[in-house]
């Protein structure tokens, strides 16, 4: 009997926890959108804050399709189970038609296959880079609902190889973060270097959270490379570079955008980064990108130096504008269908701020199309929802992070096709 009571209690609690839903009737016209981002991870918080910032901008200009936007933010804990559950709750309980997220491809993928595609909800990821999404889309499994503003790793890998060629390095050792992003980019850059005739002396996986990477660094030193390429995050990158320098490695370094952080520069020390070149897919030479940097700096008391911030900004902007174009009560498929009207190269150019947002809404209301000039440049999606983007190289300086060279979209495309 006691057992029965307890089991009733447990069931009741479980049901109660799970179904406390559906109160909060909207007082005014409010449209909910969902965001599933790893807010319990340090670098995930700014990505979420940036998305919220865009929502605030949109609301300032009078909202989207006549309604204020409320972004419901859920943490993924970088755990696929938790992320998928959060996405499912947003879709089913909050009825969102637009989902922003996730960051890790290993979380975005099950959300896409088991939540957003079956429910017909549009999913816009700021930061998932895995080439698996392209393949999935080519197989026709995404129903055109998936977009991302993070260029596939191909662009950065190609630019990394381009830097190595320009600097005249004859041999390069590759360090890559041992996850989907790192394996992807590490493999691509090794192929690109090889096709440029540059010797890849080693490709070494760096696992997270090790106390020391001495063994990995020693392995790389054996080949005596002219330079190292790093597709690493700041924490592991710092340790690898420290050990690399202390064991006598050359200061010639090339790195993917994940190391674009002041924390990395400060922890390694600027004097050891004399010949460091980073790559990124952003396009900071355009006015709109400068506007983003200025607006972000004013809003958050610091420049946008973390990974994925500009991408998160553009993802949210484009998604909200598409939502506006699709009109009130639009479904995920309606919104996804309107993305092309936001990133139309022949459309009216609009900037990525409140003024541009308002102007874009006007043009869209009049049945026109706009060319969104975003924080990552003039964003354009291909048929798989992937972005092709211009690239930049950057380096560290006393004042922070400085762009070195702008590589336009055509240059990137020409270079990439010359590799094959």
């Amino acid at each position, binding site marked *: 009997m006691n*057992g029965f009571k*307890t*089991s009733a209690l*447990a*069931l009741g*609690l*479980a049901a109660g*926890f*799970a*179904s*406390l*839903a*559906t109160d*909060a009737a909207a007082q005014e016209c409010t449209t909910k959108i969902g965001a599933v981002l790893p*807010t*319990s991870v340090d670098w*995930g*918080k700014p990505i979420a*804050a940036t998305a919220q910032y865009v929502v605030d901008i949109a609301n300032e200009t009078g909202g989207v399709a006549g309604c204020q936007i409320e972004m*419901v*933010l*859920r*943490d993924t*804990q970088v*755990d*696929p*189970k*938790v992320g*998928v*559950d*959060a996405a*499912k*709750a947003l*879709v*089913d*309980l909050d*009825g969102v038609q637009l989902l922003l997220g996730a960051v*890790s*491809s*290993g*979380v975005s*993928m*099950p959300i896409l*296959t*088991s939540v957003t595609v*079956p*429910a017909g909800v549009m999913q816009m990821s700021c930061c998932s880079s*895995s*080439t*698996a999404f392209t*393949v*999935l889309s080519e*197989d026709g499994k995404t129903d055109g609902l998936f977009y991302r503003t993070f260029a596939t790793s191909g662009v950065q890998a190609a630019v990394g190889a381009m830097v190595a060629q320009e600097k005249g390095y004859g041999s390069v050792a590759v360090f890559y973060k*041992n*996850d*989907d992003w*790192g*394996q992807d980019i590490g493999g691509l850059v090794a192929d690109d270097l090889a096709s440029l005739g540059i010797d890849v002396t080693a490709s070494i*996986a760096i*696992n997270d959270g090790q106390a020391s990477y001495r063994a990995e660094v020693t392995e790389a030193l054996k080949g005596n490379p002219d330079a190292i390429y790093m597709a690493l995050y700041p924490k592991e990158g710092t340790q690898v570079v420290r050990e690399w320098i202390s064991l006598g490695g050359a200061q010639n370094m090339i790195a993917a955008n994940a190391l674009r952080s002041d924390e990395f520069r400060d922890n390694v020390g600027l004097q050891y980064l004399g010949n460091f070149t980073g790559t990124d897919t952003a396009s900071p030479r355009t006015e709109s990108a400068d506007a983003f940097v200025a607006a972000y700096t004013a809003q958050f008391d610091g420049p946008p130096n973390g990974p994925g911030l500009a991408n998160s900004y553009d993802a949210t902007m484009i998604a909200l504008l598409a939502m506006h174009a699709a009109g009130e009560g639009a479904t995920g498929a309606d919104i996804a269908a309107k993305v092309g009207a936001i990133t139309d190269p022949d459309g009216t150019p609009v900037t990525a701020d409140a003024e541009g947002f308002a102007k874009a809404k006007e043009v869209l209301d009049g049945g026109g199309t706009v060319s969104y000039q975003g924080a990552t440049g003039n964003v354009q999606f291909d048929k798989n929802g992937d972005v092709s983007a211009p690239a930049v190289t950057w380096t560290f300086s006393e004042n922070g992070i400085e762009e070195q060279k702008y590589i336009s979209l055509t240059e990137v495309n020409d270079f990439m096709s010359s590799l094959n």
Partner: protein
Amino acid sequence: MIGVISYLVFFATVASILSIAVLGLNLQWGNTGLFNGGVVAFFGAGAYGTLILGGTPQAGQMGGFELPYLIALLGGMVISGIVAWVVGLLTLRLRHDYLAIATFGVAVAFETVMRNSDWLGGAQGIRGFERPLRDALGNGFSYNLAFLAFVLVVLIGIYLFLERLIASPFGRLLRAIREDETAARSLGKSPSRIRLTAFVAGSVIMGLAGGLYATFYAFISPQDVLPILTFQIWAMLIVGGAGNNKGAVMGTFLIWAAWTASGWALSRFAPMDVQLYTGSIQFVLIGLVIVGMLMWRPQGLFPEKLVVSQSAKDK
């Protein structure tokens, strides 16, 4: 309203799948006293096995044998059974904490191997699995409902099987080994063989749970088999009550509900300016639930029922 039902179906499916894994652990720890710290290895072996056997071919990857679903699921169970058998032979002479450390190591090794083997999906994981009967049931709510029914049938089947098992002489033998191995041996039993049997049986059940999990998401990647899953499954068993199958199932529903509902409640009720920190707050809350449970009711919600033998009861 349909949204709430749809979510509850989804929630119940995930919780039921996890329950099956917790039942497998309960056979090992609750009944036999084997401290398996590597639940994810056997869960993952079943998941990978099912997708490799039942999935469609992918460039550069092993698998895509496109076997009928039930055979693929069974194959996943066999694979996790084989893994458990090998691991059991190597480690089961160890006791308690040593066994826990050894099996934990196996689980970490499993995840690392998967992450680094491109032919097993690498860090990108395994895609290209067609959920069974998708053409007949569509991709939406009715499919999820049907899948929940299937998972519930499996869960009830496993539950009844385990209830019968632990009430049988074999179940008494398991408890005898758990309580005093030397005494069991003195009665002519072979503890090492029985321990291995229980270990493999429990792991096969975990493999079944893994197979169902991978089916439900039509995807598996190394991110699904991180040590956090072992921790979650242990927390469910401890809170529910080790040694009691009903407790194992209830504990799973309760912990998974707390895990997901805390995130939901925080996203809804936390003030705007702390929204960014709800992820971290949620971890604190989940920790509090588990610690509170251990302080308030360390034997779990449903403690094991002590079984007194017939002859002793008469006196």
